[in-house]
């Protein structure tokens, strides 16, 4: 039932994102009069819109799924139910995660249909083509990481704006620091969704996901000990 309630909390937001994810590539193709432009730039455009949409959805979803109990002032009601607080944290996180994956899938599917329709040979530019796979997996890993980070901060601060701000700040700040270290001392910090040290890309991706899950675990632990 709690999962149903989380879905009720986020469904309009989710549906709006699904609508955007589904329509952006058809609209781009329509605006560019289809065929030639799609053949030249279709796969690149899809990768770009995919990265933008999943990142935006991740930050927003991280805030919205985490903050409901605190904005509605219902924490005292929920957290006196006979379940651990960690249960509620993971349940709402999973709902948001599922929605994020659906948004990403809809965007990919819609883009693939457009490429297939206008491109003639969809497999040439198909998003799952081995050469281009990381163009889609990378943004997805970034989105999962950003979603987890935003969700965790929102839980910790019990405030959506602060959670979102802290998450954006950390992501941007980390990139800035990593760039500075790289330029000044040639120290290369791993940054999501990049490769970690000499590890293969797939292993790095798995590690980023594990770090994201650890962030949620930390948030659940903090909430379990928090005063309501």
């Amino acid at each position, binding site marked *: *039932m*709690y999962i149903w*309630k989380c879905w*009720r909390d986020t469904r309009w937001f989710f549906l709006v994102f699904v609508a955007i994810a589904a329509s952006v590539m058809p609209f781009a193709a329509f605006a560019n009069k289809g065929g030639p432009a799609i053949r030249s730039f279709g796969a690149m455009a899809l990768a770009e819109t995919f990265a933008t949409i999943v990142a935006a959805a991740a930050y927003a979803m991280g805030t919205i799924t985490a903050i409901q109990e605190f904005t509605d002032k219902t924490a005292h*009601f929920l957290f006196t139910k*006979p379940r651990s607080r960690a249960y509620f944290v993971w349940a709402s996180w999973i709902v948001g995660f599922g929605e994020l994956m659906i948004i990403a899938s809809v965007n990919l599917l819609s883009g693939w249909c457009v490429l297939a329709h206008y491109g003639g040979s969809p497999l040439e530019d198909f998003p799952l083509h081995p050469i281009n796979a990381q163009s889609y997996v990378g943004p997805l890993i970034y989105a999962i990481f950003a979603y987890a980070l935003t969700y965790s901060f929102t839980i910790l601060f019990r405030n959506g704006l602060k959670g979102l701000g802290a998450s954006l700040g950390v992501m941007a700040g980390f990139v800035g620091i990593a760039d500075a270290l790289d330029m000044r001392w040639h120290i290369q910090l791993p940054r999501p969704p990049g490769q970690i040290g000499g590890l293969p890309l797939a292993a790095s991706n798995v590690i980023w996901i594990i770090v994201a899950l650890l962030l949620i675990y930390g948030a659940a632990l903090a909430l379990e000990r928090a005063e309501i």
Partner: protein
Amino acid sequence: MNPLAIRTDNLSKVYRDVHAVRDVDLHVPRGAIYGFLGRNGAGKTTTIKMLLGLARPTSGFARVLEMDTRTQRIAIFQRTAFVSERKTLYPFLSPSDLVRFSRGFYPTWSDIAVEKYSRLLEIPMKRRFESLSNGNQTKVLLLLALSQGADLLILDEPTTALDPVTADEFLRVLAGDAMERGCTVFFSSHQLEEVERIAEYVGVMDRGKLLMESRLDDIKSEFRLIIATGNSLPMETSSRVLSVASDGCYCKYFVTRDAEDFAAELTRDGATVTQTASLSLREIFLHLVRKEPPCTSGNAGAIPAGSSSFS
């Protein structure tokens, strides 16, 4: 002796420099209806939060249904229903949705109770929570608590926003059902008449301290207002004289126990006792927590917690 549904030992809570609760020893017998009284900011809600594990005690400990609130929170919630002073729920869900939502958490949930209380309290079950009046929102929370089949009801100002008719009906049901099911009710309230009507036990808090805890009948039979006239009447407070107020040639003594003995002592010392009156809970409460009428040094500790009824 009944086992205790709630027991706290030296329970204290400090928020930075504010001592919200100080060394509170509560004893709520099983099956009892316990009225928890106090002014705004007295520490009632903080105490309730500590009982439910929503706040951590700075020192001391609490046991609810013989379980430790720090380590057995979930087991306590399985058998405890709680209505917060904040009467808020998910705004977009209807009472029916909220029943569906809550039902899954409790094996002891009763749909018969839902039916009964929703009809009794006249709750519009299909409207969104946010569109209900304050009174109806409160009723929904009470409905959910009452339908849970809990062994212990903890209600923080449950009748706030209820109209007199509904409040009356609710109290009648609460008292009747609690007695029928052997359920313990621990409720805070500012409505002293309500407490007087249904509570068997009363605890009074002020400025974080438990001033008094006793059986209501004992309190009402012990506390007396004695009015005496005469020369050189005693003006000192003591363990049994909570306050003394001089009014012209009269003195009013607010006595917490042994009123007959005290009246006899006054007579023996040459005073004339003109009246010995029993007091309502409202009068007792006001005397206990009111700060300072002239010639009064109203101090805490009228009846040390647990002195008479629980030992």
